């Protein structure tokens, strides 16, 4: 592999670089971190028309090599071959936005000064034309001294020509062209001159985007539209996902029943049906919700609306010492805190970023939904509280709200104490609106779904299996309760001493142990606990919700809900926080403060409910 040619894509943010990368390499991309920093490394294989394969990497978007963010620092070091452990790229593909040449050509001068074989992809020429710009690629090519290929990455235009130009550039690999080295002012002047020569016609066409922004960024209508959009997203996450989740659930149930019917009765059969199939099945049912939420997030990002949402939310976030940039990570955290915490990389200010990481687990992630769902179904009557609002939905809404309010309060407190610092800035380019390509969205969804399934397939699977073993051994003598005798029962006895004062029973203590792996495991753990405890098939078949409603008091159920608003019961989140903060200090603080809040609020909820006679 050592003689494989390496191609690197680089350019300003919003040049359409990732869409171009998708078209050059396809869906099989390797996403990892650059060692030692929390910047994503995206790599893929580029196949030329003659079948030659090259390694391609998509470098983070940069405005300049003179870094003001960790992303730009990585781009500079990799492009110059100074990043330890990262091979120097042989060919550079410089992606420029045809509609914003004067700006993008500034960084282009810096890249060209490296002297490496370079090809310019003059991207989004269709949008430039729509904006009334007419460009001459030949003039640009002569001025820069490198080949220029016109592309429209989202429409797949110019990809073959770009590949042909890359194939051509192979002959120059290893040579360094002598190109002028300029300072920042000279670069800007040169960019202006070249852009003027290249763009031979500008009509003052009123841009469609301006008209859209007049509505979407209207000081009064804009926030309202965002609110409605968020409401639609959550509605979709619940309503659209339900039939798909039910189908997956039924599938897991049918598989379990089939295995049970086909296999002779044995400990292995119980392990497969009650441990493996039930456990993994209880997690895979979230896949539809995660995919639907990410579908919206990816569309918002690809169209350019996400930056507007950040603009609209900046005022509110500034109120608790954060910026609009924290909005995207926090929104992602409603699906899952892991992609949310990873998305904090776009926040340049380290204290802003740390605060956002610490509050991300308070956003109600989809893993809490089954826990909330089972308890609400069991304890909250499906009553109408007027105006067509159901009591069950209202309780769910309050649980979401509790998480959001807690996150804002915690952010405010942290910014005044542990992450104190001067008010941070918010400088953000609002990219032009763009119709995204279905293929790009599909690739993004596939990457997210794969990360989730891999997690479900490993951590959650192992946790469920370990719990099953802990619950099944040692086996009870006739007349004894299996739960009481098991190893897990003995661990729960110890934990119960601490949790009893806040209204938790031993079954809850038992479920919380494996639920450290992931919150949703609490449901399968409770199901497993009560299922194994039952002596006949009929009781086992009884729904978990109806079992709980007869065994738990209402104050206990409410306290359990309050606990899950706060408790950091997710090993993956803790692991990601450790990786993103480069140490155990902050994850330890995060786990500590969240458990403390969980204990206090579960206790308050329990004793308030008891006092009120619920």
């Amino acid at each position, binding site marked *: 592999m050592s003689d494989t040619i390496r191609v690197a894509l680089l350019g300003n943010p919003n040049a359409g670089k990732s869409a171009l990368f998708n078209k050059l390499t396809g869906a099989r991309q390797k996403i990892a971190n650059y060692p030692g920093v929390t910047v994503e490394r995206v790599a893929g294989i580029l196949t030329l028309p003659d079948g030659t394969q090259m390694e391609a990497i998509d470098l983070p978007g940069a405005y300049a090599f003179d870094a003001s963010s960790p992303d730009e620092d990585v781009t500079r070091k990799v492009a110059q071959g100074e990043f330890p452990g990262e091979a120097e790229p042989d060919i550079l593909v410089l992606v420029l936005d045809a509609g914003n040449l*004067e*700006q993008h050509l*500034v960084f282009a001068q810096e890249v060209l000064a490296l002297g490496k074989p370079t090809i310019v992809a003059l991207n989004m020429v269709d949008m430039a034309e729509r904006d009334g710009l007419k460009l001459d690629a030949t003039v640009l090519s002569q001025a820069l001294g490198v080949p220029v290929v016109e592309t429209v990455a989202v429409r797949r235009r110019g990809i073959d020509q770009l590949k042909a130009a890359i194939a051509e550039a192979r002959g120059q690999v290893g040579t360094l062209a002598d190109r002028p080295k300029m300072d920042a002012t000279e670069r800007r002047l040169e960019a202006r001159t070249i852009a003027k020569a290249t763009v031979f016609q500008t009509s003052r066409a009123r841009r469609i985007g301006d008209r859209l*922004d007049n509505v979407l960024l209207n*000081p*009064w209508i804009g926030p309202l539209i965002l609110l409605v959009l968020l409401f639609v997203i959550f509605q979709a996450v619940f309503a659209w996902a339900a039939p798909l989740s039910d189908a997956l659930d039924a599938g897991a149930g049918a598989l379990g029943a089939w295995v049970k019917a086909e296999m002779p009765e044995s400990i292995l059969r119980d392990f497969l049906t009650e441990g493996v199939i039930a456990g993994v099945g209880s997690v895979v049912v979230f896949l539809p919700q995660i995919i639907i939420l990410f579908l919206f997030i990816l569309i918002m990002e690809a169209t350019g609306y996400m930056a507007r949402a950040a603009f609209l939310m900046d005022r509110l976030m*500034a109120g608790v010492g954060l910026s609009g940039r924290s909005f995207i990570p926090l929104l992602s955290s409603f699906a899952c805190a892991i992609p949310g915490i990873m998305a904090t990389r776009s926040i340049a200010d380290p204290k802003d970023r740390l605060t956002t990481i610490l509050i991300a687990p308070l956003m109600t992630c989809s893993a809490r939904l089954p826990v909330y769902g089972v308890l609400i179904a069991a304890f909250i009557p499906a009553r109408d509280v007027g105006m067509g609002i159901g009591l069950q939905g209202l309780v769910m809404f309050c649980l979401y709200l509790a998480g959001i309010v807690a996150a804002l309060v915690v952010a405010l407190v942290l910014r005044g104490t542990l992450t104190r610092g001067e008010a941070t800035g918010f*400088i953000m380019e609002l990219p032009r609106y763009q119709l995204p390509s279905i293929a790009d969205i599909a690739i993004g969804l596939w990457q997210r779904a794969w990360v989730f399934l891999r997690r479900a397939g490993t951590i959650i699977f192992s946790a469920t299996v370990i719990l099953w073993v802990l619950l099944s051994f040692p086996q009870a003598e006739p007349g004894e309760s299996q739960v009481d005798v098991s190893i897990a029962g003995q661990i729960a006895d110890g934990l119960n001493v601490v949790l009893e004062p806040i209204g938790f029973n031993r079954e809850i203590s038992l479920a919380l142990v494996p639920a450290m792996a992931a919150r949703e495991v609490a449901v399968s753990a409770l199901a497993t606990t009560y299922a194994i405890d039952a002596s006949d098939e009929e009781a086992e078949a009884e729904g978990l919700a109806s079992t709980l409603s007869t065994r738990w008091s209402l104050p206990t159920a409410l306290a359990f809900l309050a606990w899950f608003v706060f408790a950091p019961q997710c090993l993956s989140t803790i692991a990601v926080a450790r990786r993103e903060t480069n140490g155990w200090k902050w994850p330890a603080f995060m786990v500590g403060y969240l458990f403390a809040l969980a204990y206090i609020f579960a206790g308050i909820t329990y004793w308030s409910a008891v006092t009120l006679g619920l």
Partner: protein
Amino acid sequence: MTLESLQPGHRARIASIDWDALPPADGKRMRALGFEPGVEVSMAHHGVFGGRDPVAVSIGRMTIALRKVQAAAISLEQA
């Protein structure tokens, strides 16, 4: 007059920028986005609910969101 008091739809030229009033990272980023004396800017949008924090400014062919504190460091003259 400084940038944050420019009314939506109005244009002006940047007269000077008080770089010392800005954190170094903000200054670097603003320079990279093309903020410098002599450049024409226009106010595209004010922030939510009539506030001016943040504002959206048109510069070149881009729209850039800025906070009031950053916009206040940019002094304007008639275009």
